[in-house]
């Protein structure tokens, strides 16, 4: 059991002045807890407007309708992958493999509107900024800016519960 199992939510301040929000836990499993990585309303995975995410093919999780433009680390962990187009990041901790994917079909934007603030192999702390994104540019490109937060190996993890507790 990780430290964050004791929290239902945590104030996230990141490293940036003015970026403070109360992050609730969005996924819980035996291996640990995933806090929301971006400020906004949490929606069920099934409501993400993309069949690949909604169907659970990429793992179980939730969607977040962002009210902000900064993705932060939802737990202490290691950055396992960073998409070349900077719109998605993978983080691992205690056997959990988490994908945070900003927007739907945003791979087609080829990095425009996205700044990735970490690199593969980095150790990150809860609340540390990972990706900055431009919601106006995503909208202008015609895509949804919903952030998918998915445990890609949820099949291998025990007692996975998704949604705000």
């Amino acid at each position, binding site marked *: 059991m990780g430290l964050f199992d004791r929290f239902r939510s945590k104030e996230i301040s990141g490293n940036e002045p003015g970026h403070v929000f109360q992050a609730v836990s969005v996924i819980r499993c035996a291996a640990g807890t995933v806090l929301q990585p971006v400020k906004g309303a949490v929606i069920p995975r099934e409501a993400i407007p993309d069949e690949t995410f909604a169907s659970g093919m*990429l793992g179980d999780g939730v969607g977040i309708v962002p009210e902000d433009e900064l993705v932060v680390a939802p737990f202490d962990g290691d950055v396992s*992958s960073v998409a070349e187009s900077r719109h998605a990041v993978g983080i691992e901790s205690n056997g959990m493999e988490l994908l945070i994917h900003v927007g739907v079909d945003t*791979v087609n934007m080829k990095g425009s509107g996205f700044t990735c603030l970490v690199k593969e192999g980095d150790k990150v702390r809860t609340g540390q900024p990972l990706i900055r994104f431009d919601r106006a540019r995503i909208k202008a490109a015609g895509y949804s800016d919903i952030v998918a937060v998915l445990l890609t190996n949820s099949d291998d993890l025990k007692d996975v519960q998704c949604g705000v507790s």
Partner: protein
Amino acid sequence: MKSFEYTITDPVGIHARPAGILVKKIKEFASTVTVIKGEKEVNALKLMALMGMGIKQGDTVKVTVEGADEDTAAAAIEEFFKANL
């Protein structure tokens, strides 16, 4: 063990959606599927590792398939690469 090489034609390479569909396809079989690009190789069921390889359009990957159903699995997976990647 069966293997094939394939050069990616999808303009955005192996990103979330095709990787997810590939994993689902591989789960239909008992064989172990490994994707190799240069020095890097990953078990293709490891979605995050697969996406982390940063496979792009024009990259040539080698795919190995090993297990009891490797003949059918290799044929199906090669077909999948041609159709989706």
